[in-house]
């Protein structure tokens, strides 16, 4: 079974304008994943997640690395998206594991927290 360990190494958060906490959440997520090291049974990925509101009035950046351990096929399955529009499982797992942190930061900044589920690739 594929095991994923997520290690958060950096958090940046900025807010340039006052945002109504009760307004609907409208964060977009920009993702960068890149291979750091790979062996036959493990793959380490560097990740950076940028959560931004449309006018960049608030931005939360999380960076770190994720280690996938499993067979070659399990690892391949974890990094392969089911189709062109949907995220690969590893990205869903990274976002899920970090969501608690994202929620706390957004709450502390008094901005509507980003929504908890990754849906699809934006055009």
């Amino acid at each position, binding site marked *: 079974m594929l095991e994923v360990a997520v290690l958060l190494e950096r958090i940046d958060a900025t807010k340039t304008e006052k945002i109504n906490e009760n307004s609907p*959440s409208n964060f977009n997520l920009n993702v960068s994943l890149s*291979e750091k090291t790979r062996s036959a049974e493990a793959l380490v990925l560097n990740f950076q997640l940028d959560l931004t509101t449309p006018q960049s009035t608030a931005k939360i950046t999380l960076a770190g690395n994720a280690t996938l351990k499993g067979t070659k096929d399990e690892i391949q399955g974890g990094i392969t998206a089911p189709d062109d529009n949907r995220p690969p499982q590893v990205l869903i797992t990274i976002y899920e594991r970090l969501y608690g942190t994202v929620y706390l930061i957004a709450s502390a900044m008094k901005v509507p927290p980003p929504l908890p589920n990754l849906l699809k690739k934006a055009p």
Partner: protein
Amino acid sequence: MVGETGVSMYSGVIRFYTLADLRRYLKELLERYQKEFDRSSNVIGSLLRVEGQKGMEVIMSKGWAKVGSIFVNISEPEKGSMEVVFQLVTEMKPRLAKTEEVLKTFESVEQLPIPEEATFLLYLRGGVPERLVVDTTEPRPVPYALRGKFTLGP
């Protein structure tokens, strides 16, 4: 089940995608063997220091009986444990030395004219790195990268 010591000395084949990964693995393997060797020999050493005047009798148990095709010790668990740890330490020494030698001379492997896309199969025999296959039939996977924008939902 709890692995006490020496359980990492297995036989098997491991694939590596780069020589740097292989070198790192050998270094970690050597460190692990050294740690296990130190720990086990400390146990034996401290016992011999305390009861050394009795010689090897302290370690050698007479409580072994052959049951089926395995030796079982019910009557002297402490001595029995010491004896097997002593045996393990004796076996560890040459494995440790051989692994150390492989790592010391690994530079000569790195200087071979190896195709860039090759991968490497390491054969470990009883924990000792014994053979290395430079495999050009299974190429290294293309480095993974993903960039994109995703929408979020409830």
